[in-house]
């Protein structure tokens, strides 16, 4: 199970991040102080750290410098939209930089990307009779490979990563097509329909009016 350390001094934000992480089943621990965070990291085992920059005690940069030897991927969380801060964070070895405020699903998507990059992500995604092998780029239905275009594959993988979570068209667009993509949400609809048809998800990958799509588990 993936263990994530949340270092955040505002208890409500920490609670929100924890709630987001528990949706997809990540295990987490919360730390509200810089010094305490360093101790926790050095003594425990974590796959990822979500690190606030403005912290009591040591600040986020100092914490990062002290735990570098553990080689754990770090995502900075900060209210500062300062390019200099961002550069400083990334130069220190942070994997990503999320500016507050952010949506829960965006946080999950960024975590997924970082985890995959550090080979700690889930390689085999399972949903009922469907299996997706992220490494081999294979989508199997009942053990049979299904031919998908690369974008369709990405869309399917994103739904499997976020079972029971509604994905908005904007989220799909930015995760699959990238932030710079200026496409229309029609493109998203077409791809989702294709995935639905090819994988036989007619009653499970449902459309939620005014919101987006959700792959629902059989619970």
């Amino acid at each position, binding site marked *: 199970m993936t263990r994530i350390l949340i270092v955040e001094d*505002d*208890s*409500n934000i920490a609670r*929100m991040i924890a*709630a987001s992480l528990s949706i997809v089943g990540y295990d987490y621990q919360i730390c*509200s102080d810089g010094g305490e965070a360093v101790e926790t990291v050095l003594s425990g085992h974590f796959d990822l750290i979500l690190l606030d920059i403005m912290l009591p005690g040591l600040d986020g940069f100092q914490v990062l410098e002290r735990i570098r030897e553990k080689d754990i991927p770090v995502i900075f969380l900060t209210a*500062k939209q300062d390019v200099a801060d961002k550069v400083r964070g990334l130069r220190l070895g942070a994997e990503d930089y999320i500016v507050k*405020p952010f949506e829960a699903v965006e946080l999950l998507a960024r975590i997924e990307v970082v985890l995959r990059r550090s080979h700690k992500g889930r390689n085999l995604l399972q949903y009922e009779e469907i299996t997706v092998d992220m490494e081999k780029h294979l989508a199997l239905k009942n053990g049979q490979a299904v031919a998908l275009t690369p974008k369709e594959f990405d869309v399917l993988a994103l739904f499997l990563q976020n079972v029971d979570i509604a994905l908005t068209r904007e989220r799909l667009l930015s995760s699959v097509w990238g932030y710079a993509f200026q496409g229309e949400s029609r493109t998203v609809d077409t791809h989702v329909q294709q995935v639905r048809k090819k994988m036989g998800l007619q009653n499970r990958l449902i459309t939620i009016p005014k*919101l987006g799509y959700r792959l*629902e588990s059989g619970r």
Partner: protein
Amino acid sequence: MKLWQKIFLYTLALMIAAVDTTAFFILSEVHRNMVERERNQAATEHQYLSAAISNKVVYERLKSEKVLLGAEGVQKILLDQIDSKAEGGGSAVYTDEDILLGSANCIPAEKDADFREIVRQQENCLLKIEEYNGRTYVLAGSPINLEDSVYYLYTTKDISDVYVLLDRQSSFAQTMSFVFAGIGAVVLLAVAWGLLRPLHKVNFSLRSIARGNYSMRLPIKGSPEIRELSGNINRMASSIEENVEQLRSAAEERKRFIDNLAHEMKTPLTSILGFADILRVKRILPEEERREYASIIVEETKRLKNLSGKLMELITAGSTHLEKTQIHPSALFEEIETSFRPIFEKSGIRLLVSAGDFSLLADRELLKSLLYNLLDNAVKASSPGQEIRLECKKHGENMLAFTVEDQGMGMSEEDIRKATEPFYMADKSRSRKAGGAGLGLSLCLEIVKCHGGSLSIESAPGKGTKVTVLLPEGGDLTDETY
């Protein structure tokens, strides 16, 4: 052209002009005197010759024992005499009809018929300065009456030497004036350079200041003018330095304020957006989770509301025109006590109020806001069972001291120092839980400042906190400025 070049050229020109003019006047005066003397001498010589001729004629007449010498005899004497004069100059004799009888070395007289005509009319001894053949002569002419006949005697005297002397002297004066001007130029250059050198130094330093080195100061030395200039430049530099420093610290303060504001706004927003998103996208949401998330959203939204309210107060406190009215602290305290009673009852803290019979001029709403904020802070720092004192006493001659004293957790020295900075919270998590934005004391300070008062904090960890606000007492209605 540079100043030293101007000074140098003007002074040099003036010097040459002065030397030349003086030389010119002296030389021409000397020359005029010499010419005058030569003229007088020429006149004397002429008269002497004239008298000598007359005497000779009389002597010859007496010698020959005649009544009258004939024209022949007279003319012979005349010619003898002019020949004898020939060495010093020249002389010539004309008859009454202006016919030349004889001339010795006297060409100017022969040439100048106009002069002869004038002499014939004047019947008098006349003098004239005449140039001839590159030389200068004094020409003298007079009628001479000999043996009933009138003759005209002319003499010349060469005074060219006087003119040659003038030429020589003026060229000497010119040479000398150039030599002295040259020496003067060198001296002047040195003097001008020496006088202006402090100016160069001042200029050099000034350039450094202009380039942004505002902490640079000039040494106060040299002539009084330079000292004054340096002093003024130093004053200018220090006032610029001060202003720049003020601007810099104002800009820094503003940046810090904005950074803090952004942080204080984004923190509740992050919770709100995050929980709202979870509520929106999560398919299966237990009732208790839904209620918890929604509660947090409401709580954080209230925090934002509180923040924006405090910000508005802070902005208006700093800019609005004060509506000052006569306020009696005792009445004001009663009002405050009433509105704060529920809070005190709920938290189990006792409020002790005491105010003397004073009055002051202040903006009622702002003064209330000030005391509310101080009491609010005191309540947040206190635990059940403790007391908070709100007092108003006389302080010194014409000030009133409002004090809010609690027995709560107190603050460290660093906390006291930073307490009035916007968004500073001594205990962040505790203040946040109580809905604080970290703006209360900043607001208080702003209100106190615009009433011309002061605010001070006494505190120690665990020993409680005492905030004292001094405001001017009494009814001076004109005092509406900071």
